[in-house]
């Protein structure tokens, strides 16, 4: 049990792990999906799989915004960046994500004006500081991040900052969960619900999963004890034949979410009829576009966007990994052509991507074991 001594409250962790073993028994197999990429990272970081009994299988979900973005959207954004007097601004997570002509960082090396910002409001600040340039913010993220983009656009409009626009790639988590549940090769027993997305949307949007699909879902925090407690709550429901939404992360997630954040989303965005997700294909009403009131700040309306569609490299099996059909190391390119240093698929770029997480923790651990056996 690696890392256990580093955990806070190790005794409580041991007790909770015992409770999981007792509840899980041995007679059946449990497949639980952690929706959020932050949870995927934490599971590998803490070696939680070493703590859980073998008949509890954690399936990594689609909740890593960088990972689910199709390569064509990166190409589209970078095509705008190549127009004269445009500054391309994005979060650091985006910088190493490959497009067909290279990543944003590689474009920067070729002389394209690419800047890292840590907040959408800093992209707006860049626009104020560079009145003779146009600043395009390449927006990504789930409902956690969409309100900040929305409020930034409301401020741009109120202040009349016209050399600023947003290339919107915001996606919504519920339709992705629905698509996974509709997928014929996916059998799941329960969900570990996302933590920080739920600070915005609250717990009610998950109720259909419990009611219609009869799957338990527990919104969870990110510490080992949080996730183990969430698994106990899920097992208790499954053992009792129940399916309901529970909130393990009450200290941060209010049941009703953040209404001011939801109002900001509603003010600026509307649902796209459909949007392509890497690995999952087109999912209806699964992403946000900028509504007509904010058309002037919508990069897709201001610039000619090629609308590039790119199929992933054939050998890369990002789609199967994203859907949980393959484990990261079962992809043909994993650890060979595709590594965190030279990523081919986005799952290898973000620390929340299951391939990078697996590579950084599990793979190294395995490598160390084989090295020590040689020595």
């Amino acid at each position, binding site marked *: 049990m690696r890392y256990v001594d580093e955990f806070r409250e190790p005794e409580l962790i041991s007790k909770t792990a015992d409770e999981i073993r007792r509840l899980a028994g041995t007679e059946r197999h449990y497949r639980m999906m952690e929706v959020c990429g932050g949870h995927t990272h934490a599971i590998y970081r803490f070696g939680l799989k070493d703590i859980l009994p073998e008949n509890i299988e954690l399936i990594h979900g689609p909740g890593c915004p960088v990972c689910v973005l199709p390569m064509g959207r990166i190409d589209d954004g970078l095509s705008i960046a190549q127009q004269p007097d445009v500054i391309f601004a994005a979060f650091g997570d985006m910088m190493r994500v490959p497009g067909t002509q290279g990543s944003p960082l590689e474009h920067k090396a070729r002389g394209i004006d690419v800047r890292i910002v840590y907040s959408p409001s800093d992209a707006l600040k860049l626009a104020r500081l560079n009145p003779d340039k146009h600043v395009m913010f390449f927006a990504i993220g789930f409902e956690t991040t969409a309100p900040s983009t929305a409020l930034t656009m409301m401020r741009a409009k109120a202040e009349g900052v016209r050399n600023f626009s947003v290339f919107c790639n915001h996606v919504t988590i519920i339709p992705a969960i629905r698509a996974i549940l509709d997928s014929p090769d996916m059998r799941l027993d329960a969900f570990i619900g996302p933590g920080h997305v739920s600070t915005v949307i609250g717990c009610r949007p998950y109720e259909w999963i419990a009611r219609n699909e009869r799957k338990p879902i527990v919104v969870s925090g990110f510490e080992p004890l949080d996730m183990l407690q969430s698994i106990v709550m899920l097992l208790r429901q499954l053992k009792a034949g129940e399916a309901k939404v529970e909130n393990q992360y009450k*200290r941060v997630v209010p049941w009703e979410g953040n209404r001011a954040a939801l109002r900001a989303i509603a003010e600026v965005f509307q649902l796209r009829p459909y949007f392509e997700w890497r690995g999952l294909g087109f999912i209806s009403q699964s992403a946000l576009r900028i509504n007509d009131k904010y058309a002037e700040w919508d990069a897709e309306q201001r610039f000619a966007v090629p609308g590039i569609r790119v199929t992933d490299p054939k050998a890369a099996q990002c789609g199967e990994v994203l859907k949980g059909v393959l484990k990261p190391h079962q992809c043909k390119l994993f650890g060979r052509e595709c590594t965190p240093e030279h990523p081919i698929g986005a799952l290898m770029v973000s620390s929340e991507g299951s391939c990078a997480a697996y590579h950084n923790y599990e793979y190294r651990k395995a490598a160390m074991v084989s090295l020590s056996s040689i020595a």
Partner: protein
Amino acid sequence: MCLAIPGKIVEISSDNQDSALVDVVGVRRRIDLGLLQDDKPVPGDWVLIHVGFAMSKISEQDAADQMSTLRMLGEIDGAMQEVQGYGLKDVN
């Protein structure tokens, strides 16, 4: 991507009620309070910050817990880099 960083509100701007100075383990930066307009924080309150915006009010204990979560996740450097970058400082 989904980092949530705890910070303590030091001061609300006198000319902009949606802008506050926060302290994140000694680093002071301006953040946006616009997403908490239904439940405005006051100086001394703790908030969770995501991409430069306060997302929710939390207790001092939860703030300390969240910091230790970031530390355990190996995300503390990334979180501090993000906070230091707010306001376009130390970047570009």
